[in-house]
């Protein structure tokens, strides 16, 4: 087995992902459909929250992916800074919009959920708030990518922003917690304490989470390919100028 850094070569990366992509997309589609249909049609209502629990099948996975996408960008940025593999920088760039959309979904579903549960669309609950902040970080990150034309410069700057941003995102999380004690559920997927979501809700939820993860990976592969091609195209066009 050769080192994984081989896949940092654009050509190799595109070849490999080209082979993987079909399977990934089909798989993610299937799991998503199963999870959502199961969750939507074949789960009982919660005694307290009524039918709104069904929202959890979109809300939690998207929320998780919103966070994980940022983590993935963080790792990719580190790789770029340390090993200067263009692919990882481009992967970070490709992941950002996906993460942003996930954040929006978590926010939207949450807001819709809040209406019946808390009687309000939006409350400055710590978790909600920190998600809003996360969304702002996504916005800034993408804006910076968009604003700089030299690709390597953009990669360097955005990765530093990603590092610093992560630190401040954590800070904000604590700050927000300190600032306002919220009404939001605590994390129940955490392994340390026994889960507070009954299995009937739990199993389809796992499917949905798996589906979202697969979807994320597939999208990132696809979009990274696109970024690579776009960049090669820019290079070729530039080359034509030398003629």
């Amino acid at each position: 087995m050769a080192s994984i850094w081989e896949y940092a070569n654009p050509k190799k990366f595109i070849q490999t992902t080209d082979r993987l992509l079909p399977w990934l997309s089909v798989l993610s589609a299937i799991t998503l459909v199963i999870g959502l249909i199961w969750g939507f049609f074949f789960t009982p209502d919660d005694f307290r929250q009524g039918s709104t629990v069904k929202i959890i099948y979109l809300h939690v996975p998207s929320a998780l992916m919103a966070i994980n996408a940022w983590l993935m960008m963080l790792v990719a940025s580190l790789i770029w800074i340390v090993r200067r593999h263009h692919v990882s920088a481009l992967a970070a760039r490709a992941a950002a919009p996906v993460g942003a959309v996930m954040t929006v979904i978590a926010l939207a579903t949450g807001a819709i959920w809040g209406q019946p549960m808390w009687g309000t669309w939006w409350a400055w609950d710590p978790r909600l708030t920190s998600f809003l902040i996360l969304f702002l970080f996504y916005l800034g990150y993408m804006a910076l990518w968009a604003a700089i034309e030299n690709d390597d410069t953009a990669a360097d700057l955005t990765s530093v922003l990603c590092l610093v941003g992560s630190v401040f995102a954590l800070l904000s999380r604590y700050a927000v917690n300190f600032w306002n004690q919220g009404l939001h559920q605590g994390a129940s997927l955490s392994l340390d304490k026994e889960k507070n979501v009954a299995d009937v809700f739990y199993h389809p939820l796992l499917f949905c989470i798996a589906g979202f993860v697969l979807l994320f990976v597939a999208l990132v592969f696809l979009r990274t390919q696109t970024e690579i091609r776009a960049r090669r195209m820019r290079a070729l066009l530039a080359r034509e100028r030398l003629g």
Partner: protein
Amino acid sequence: MMPDLGKYADAVLSSYAVSIVLILALVAFSVMRARKVRAQLDEVERRSRKNG
């Protein structure tokens, strides 16, 4: 077949609608851009192979 969602029907349905629309939009956009860039790149490749 359609489960009875009780008084929360609109909440549940709208959240499903919103999420699915967003996801589909993201996927559609990514795929379309992928197609476009691929085509453009092939075009450029041909050109630049033709003349040096």
